[in-house]
């Protein structure tokens, strides 16, 4: 084929050259744009994209450090961490899930409910994530799986640290428990709890959460586009939480809990010199371990519905009318006045009425106790004596002294959610109980009426009587130990301002008189006295109550009485104060149980044994000698007090 006419070769070449040059210009500008873009992306924005690339391939994962241990005062572990193995599976690596599940089922327990839960989790997760087959494996199951792991492609054993309470419910009201973080807690403290799975929900676990939780570590993991782990780039294990040494003795705790078995009540033992809580028991107990992994709804409902209210901490939150156990504090208040004399005899005839009013107030002993002084009034727990005393003191003064002894407000113990109790101060009366009648003053005088105290307040106030009128703030954490250095930071006891003390020796006298409650032949706690090598100052109380039907679940008697005892030993320099409450104690043999518990706790602390007969002879001799060194302390104090009042106007307590 030929061209139709002669080509203008030179013209075509020139035309072609022009076009190529134009094309070259276009191409050059495009190359310039491209190079400019590369400069922008690779040089100018390099840091940005490099960060993105790093972000692409590394995933920081939180590493939760071990939580601090909680130990009793002697180092017995109350709460520790132990690895829990869980069985997980990578769904994308499993060819046939049903076969795998059948294989797992042949190795470990795997019931239909587990299967259903697994199916639910499997559907919710994406195929490259690890899905838990069983959350918690027993040690034997973990071993079995580990031995067969090579036959189970895509199956992993992963270990996590879980909180464990090896002694179960022992001291659970002090220790508290750890439970999975709730969304609300996370929302309230998003920074503090970031990365953590659970937090203390009650007791020391809650109050000392920030000490126990340590500092979060992290792990930088290189992952591919599917999120699969390639390698661990960096690992910071975090800082493990500090260990807590409690003031509580596991031994005393165990003894008290055993004695409380199947009964409702509370016991608290303090060292009056420091405020250290030696035992804190609220019965019935519950096992905190199920809470750690998230307690089932049915189980939780059972705990909530239990009329014994095992979840309540009766020591901190149980509000009891103190009954006669409040009388020593009124006696103390009276001893500070100019008009009261402890040996002035008062006639107690079984009933009493306010002058000008013929409503009768009854004594617990219908025929009365005759003409008695303070010592016998305390020993036999005369009500008439204290009716008269209360009437003379007046509610304002009574409330002031009660407030001084710490009633009506939280004691400040280092445990969460403590109740304040109720003291009928003028302000409280204005707010809740106006008008106030004289009769209410009178019954408040024997610990009834609106007065409500917690066992802890009672023990702490009694400890003030036993410790020169200085009340110590109770505490349960003796020291915080840094696990790396081993150094312990001890809690410093904190004294509250001294209770108003106007009469020399009045405290010594009161304490000596209170020992008659145990040692006196008519003493209400005389059963305690048997073979005791030391003197015990104590006061019992019985609070009579009407129970309101509570959520319809309560089936017990409507009218019941709680038995209380508060005791301090050894007098004159007490080292332990115990307050015990037994709910629904009634009268008779059961009402002696608090006394027995108090004696057991005191013996355990002072002698090392629950029963005196097991204690070492030297220990017993030591206390007996101490007792004989100060034979008539009360008489002595009485003489001192009397001497101080010589020549002052003497009046009958009730005027």
């Amino acid at each position, binding site marked *: 084929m030929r061209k139709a006419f002669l080509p203008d070769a030179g013209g075509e070449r020139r035309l*072609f050259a022009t076009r190529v040059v134009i094309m070259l210009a276009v191409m050059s500008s495009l190359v310039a744009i491209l*190079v400019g873009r590369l400069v922008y992306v690779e040089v100018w924005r390099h840091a940005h994209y*490099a960060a993105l690339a790093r972000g692409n391939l590394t995933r920081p994962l939180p590493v939760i450090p071990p939580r601090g241990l909680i130990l009793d005062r002697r180092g017995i572990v109350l709460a520790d961490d132990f690895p829990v193995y869980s069985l997980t599976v990578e769904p994308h690596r499993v060819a046939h899930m049903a076969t795998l599940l059948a294989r797992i089922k042949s190795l470990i327990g795997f019931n239909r409910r587990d299967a259903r839960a697994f199916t639910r989790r499997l559907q919710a997760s994406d195929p490259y994530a690890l899905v838990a087959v069983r959350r918690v494996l027993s040690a034997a199951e973990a071993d079995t799986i580990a031995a067969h792991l090579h036959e189970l492609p895509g199956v992993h054993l992963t270990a996590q640290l879980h909180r464990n309470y090896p002694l179960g419910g022992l001291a659970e009201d002090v220790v508290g428990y750890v439970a999975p973080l709730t969304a609300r807690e996370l929302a309230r403290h998003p920074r503090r709890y970031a990365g953590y799975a659970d937090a203390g929900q009650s007791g020391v676990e809650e109050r000392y959460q920030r000490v126990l939780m340590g500092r979060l570590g992290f792990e930088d993991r290189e992952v591919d586009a599917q999120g699969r782990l390639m390698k661990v780039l960096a690992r910071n294990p975090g800082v493990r939480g500090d260990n807590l040494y409690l003031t509580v003795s596991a031994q005393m705790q165990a003894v008290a809990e055993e004695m409380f078995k199947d009964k409702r009540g509370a016991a608290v033992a303090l060292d009056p010199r420091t405020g250290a809580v030696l035992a804190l028991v609220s019965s019935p107990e519950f096992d905190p371990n199920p809470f750690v992994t998230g307690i089932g709804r049915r189980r939780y409902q059972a705990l909530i519905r239990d009329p014994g209210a095992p979840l309540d901490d009766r020591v901190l939150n149980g509000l009891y009318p103190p009954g006669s156990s409040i009388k020593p504090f009124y006696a103390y208040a009276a001893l500070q006045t100019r008009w009261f004399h402890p040996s002035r005899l008062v006639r107690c005839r079984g009933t009493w009425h306010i002058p000008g009013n013929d409503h009768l107030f009854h004594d617990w002993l219908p025929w009365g106790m005759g003409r008695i002084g303070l010592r016998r009034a305390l020993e036999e727990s005369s009500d008439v004596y204290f009716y008269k005393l209360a009437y003379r003191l007046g509610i304002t003064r009574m409330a002031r002294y009660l407030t001084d002894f710490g009633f009506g407000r939280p004691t400040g113990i280092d445990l969460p959610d403590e109740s304040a109790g109720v003291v009928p101060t003028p302000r409280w009366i204005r707010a809740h109980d106006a008008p106030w009648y004289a009769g209410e003053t009178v019954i408040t005088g024997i610990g009834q009426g609106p007065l409500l105290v917690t066992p802890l307040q009672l023990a702490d106030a009694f400890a003030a009587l036993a410790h020169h009128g200085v009340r110590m703030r109770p505490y349960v954490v003796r020291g915080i130990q840094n696990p790396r250095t081993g150094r312990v930071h001890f809690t410093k006891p904190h004294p509250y301002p001294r209770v108003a003390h106007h009469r020399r020796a009045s405290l010594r006298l009161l304490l000596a008189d209170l020992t008659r409650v145990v040692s006196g032949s008519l003493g209400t706690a005389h059963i305690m006295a048997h073979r005791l090598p030391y003197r015990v100052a104590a006061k019992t109380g019985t609070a009579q109550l009407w129970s309101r039907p509570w959520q319809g679940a309560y089936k017990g008697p409507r009218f019941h009485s709680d038995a209380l005892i508060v005791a301090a030993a050894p007098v004159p320099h007490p080292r332990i104060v115990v307050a015990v409450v037994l709910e629904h104690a009634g009268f008779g043999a059961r009402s002696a149980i608090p006394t027995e518990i108090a004696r057991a706790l005191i013996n355990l602390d002072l002698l090392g044994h629950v029963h005196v007969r097991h204690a070492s002879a030297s220990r017993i001799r030591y206390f007996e000698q101490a007792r004989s060194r100060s034979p008539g302390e009360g008489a002595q104090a009485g003489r001192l007090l009397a001497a101080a009042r010589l020549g002052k106007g003497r009046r009958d307590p009730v005027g």
Partner: protein
Amino acid sequence: MTNYERWHIDRPLFHALLALAATSLFVLYSAGGNNLLFALGDALRLAVGFVVMFAAAQVSPETYRKWSVPLFGGGVLALALVLAIGVVRFGARRWIAFGPLSIQPSEFMKLAVPMMLAWYFSRRSLPPRLTQVIIAALIMLIPVLLIAKEPDLGTAVIVLLSGVIVLFLAGMSWRTIAVVVLAAVAAAPVLWAHMHHYQRQRIYILFHPEADPLGAGYHAIQGMIAVGSGGIFGQGWLHSSQANLHFLPDSTTDFAFAVFCQEFGFFGDLALLALYLFIIYRGLRIAFAAQDSYSRLLAASLSVLFFFDVFINMGMVSGILPVVGVPLPILSYGGTSLLIIMADLGILMSIHGHRRLVN
């Protein structure tokens, strides 16, 4: 007479190609997950490419000119065949399967269309008249429409581009160019108004990949991350985290340049770009030296097309162009495209090697 001359091989072009092939081996070994087998496959592919180039260089331009029409016709037929019996992969019907082999006729049209148009214009005096331009446009639109129907918009655009390049180099009058450009500009809003919502969305995503980082924008964003994290000197060979950890899809094919960028950095890019530009420069030199209108047009348009192949891929990876499936010549792993490119270069060598020494 050296061996190069005897076998019609252009020595600078050949050396540049060897350098590119070596680069390809290194980059694909890394991008393919340090897989020696994969690199061997690449080597084999390149070897086949060189054989094709060598063979193409032995055929004289005159023969090419004679075979232009049948080749074009065959290509169009193959395209029609694809639409009839093609294999559907990734939602598009682009391949014809021959047992284990499958070929992509649309790639072939990148070569056949310039040949066809060069043949058409070589028989006419240049510059072409308007009617000739229209006829040429119609010729080239047949394969373009067939390819667009597959659908393979990227290749269709490139094939269209190859035809336009020939038209432009042939000397299409500026007035015609202006009219076409104005018509395109005027048609754009009308087209936009007639598009489906999802199509508009797709175009929007093409220009704003951040709007859908895990979907349509994923390629673009991961490519940009690979390029940007390369920096001035790069992370070093075998250290492209984007490819090794599979963040970058198509790291051995369309996004091989991104891997190259992350490993060798800005200076590496400049060197690679220089290599490509040298090949294009050499191709244009050959076009200038060509002795007849057919060879001249064909050589120039193949070179310019080669440039656009390179530019579109690099622009797409570095984020100035939307993501269209265009491989980087020679460097990317891709059978048909490599063979066509090597055939292009073989034709360039043939044009150079077969020129008559005495005019």
